[in-house]
């Protein structure tokens, strides 16, 4: 082959190669490659939204391999691993990110925050606490770190530290955390009460009232303290104030309130208060309390009449059970047997029923909790109103 022919063949080939290489570099710079990345990202996101986490992880893993510098992809992957319960993988991924040289400070702090959450999920609270404390000191993602620290201290029941950090969070974000702080003081007051430190318990309750003047729990604890000290008139005042602060807690407050009415011989006041409650509160608890009061004062007949009349207005399984119990003594034979079956049935119906529900996450509970065991929010568990419950 002579030289000019060879040159004539090679030069166009080189031209095509040069053109192709330039287009490739240009595409990478202009974002065509990025848009390929983004399409993968959105595909992953779509899987996430459709709750198909396995497929999402697959896509994100491919993305992370494709571009090792994409910190966000690694963060998303770590988050996914944590949510799936693969905490050890999430920890490894975030530790790798934190130790990566050349990572910007802002990204490093995000990775630290994520690592702290991994530790929390794995139950390594001491490590999580150290990480979040460092983040607060660095003033990087401090509000999130403070929130995590508060939840760690709540878990450890270290209420003093929880209060201290909640106050710092309040100053930092300007958001009001006083209802939560009032609950922490109530926890401290309850603990002191159980240990017999009554003066200390009163101090904590005062601080709870300073945070939230209409704190139901603080009123209830005050009532309990007064009742335990045989100061039933003051206990009645505290319990009544608790109901006035939040009428939804009536089923919780009425039993000790009735006890204090009886101990302080204020049954007329009890009747007036309960009668007034009937118009304000549509649950069955005040009706049952009044039925009990009428039974003691006016006899069984008056109590049953009152209960029957009220049950027509507010049908309730608990009310029906009280009515069955009240009429059991008057009946005999086959009818009594039938009533016994009916009573067992209603009892079983009530046993399987959740009486309280969290207004935030919908968690159902048979007993009352001040902090929701599911979403950990305070004072959101309330009695369920309905035929089978309150």
């Amino acid at each position, binding site marked *: 082959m002579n*030289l000019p022919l*060879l*040159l004539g063949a*090679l*030069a*166009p*080939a*080189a*031209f*095509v*190669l*040069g*053109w*192709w*290489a*330039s*287009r490739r570099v*240009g*595409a990478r710079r*202009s974002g065509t490659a990025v848009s390929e990345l983004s399409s993968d990202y959105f595909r992953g996101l779509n899987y996430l939204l459709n709750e198909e986490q396995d497929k999402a992880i697959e896509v994100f893993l491919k993305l992370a391999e494709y571009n090792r510098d994409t910190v966000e992809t690694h963060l998303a992957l770590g988050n996914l691993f944590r949510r799936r319960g693969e905490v050890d993988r999430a920890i490894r991924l975030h530790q790798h990110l934190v130790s990566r040289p050349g990572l910007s400070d802002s990204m490093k702090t995000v990775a630290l925050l994520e690592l702290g959450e991994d530790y929390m999920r794995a139950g390594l609270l001491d490590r999580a606490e150290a990480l979040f404390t460092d983040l607060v000191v660095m003033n990087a993602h401090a509000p999130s770190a403070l929130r995590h620290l508060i939840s760690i201290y709540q878990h450890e029941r270290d209420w003093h530290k929880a209060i201290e950090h909640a106050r710092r969070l309040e100053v930092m974000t300007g958001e009001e955390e006083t209802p939560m702080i009032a609950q922490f003081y109530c926890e401290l007051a309850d603990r002191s009460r159980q240990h017999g430190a009554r003066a200390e318990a009163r101090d904590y309750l005062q601080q709870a009232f300073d945070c939230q003047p209409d704190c139901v729990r603080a009123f209830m604890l005050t009532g309990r303290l007064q009742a335990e000290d045989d100061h039933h008139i003051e206990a009645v005042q505290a319990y009544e104030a608790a109901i006035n602060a939040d009428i939804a807690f009536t089923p919780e407050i009425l039993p000790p309130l009735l006890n204090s009415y009886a101990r302080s011989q204020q049954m007329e006041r009890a009747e007036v208060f309960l009668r007034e409650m009937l118009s304000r509160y549509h649950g069955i608890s005040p009706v049952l309390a009044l039925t009990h009061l009428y039974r003691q004062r006016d006899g069984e007949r008056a109590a049953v009449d009152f209960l029957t009349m009220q049950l027509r207005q507010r049908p309730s399984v608990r009310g029906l059970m009280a009515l069955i119990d009240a009429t059991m003594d008057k009946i005999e034979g086959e009818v009594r047997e039938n009533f016994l079956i009916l009573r067992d049935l209603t009892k079983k119906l009530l046993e399987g029923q959740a009486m309280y529900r969290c207004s935030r996450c919908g968690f159902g509970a048979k007993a009352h909790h001040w902090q929701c065991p599911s979403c950990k929010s305070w004072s959101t568990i309330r009695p369920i109103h309905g035929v089978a419950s309150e």
Partner: protein
Amino acid sequence: MRLIVIFILVIFIAAGVVLGALNADMVSYDLAFAQMRLPKGAALLSAMLIGWVLGGLTAWLGVSSERRRAQRELLRNAKNPPANP
């Protein structure tokens, strides 16, 4: 991947050196305005280099003009947004 690229590059450099050594005899070119004498290997290499550079330049010009047009269109749309149907 990077290792493979380095390996191929080394092979091509070696081939270039061997080809240059085997084709060291001179050839003369008459470009009408100038005359020159070059080794055969150097002529081959320069032809390929010029082809590569010209190809790259053409592609770059094409891409950048496309991008400029798209930017102009975006700016025009931003200034006069299309009316909602």
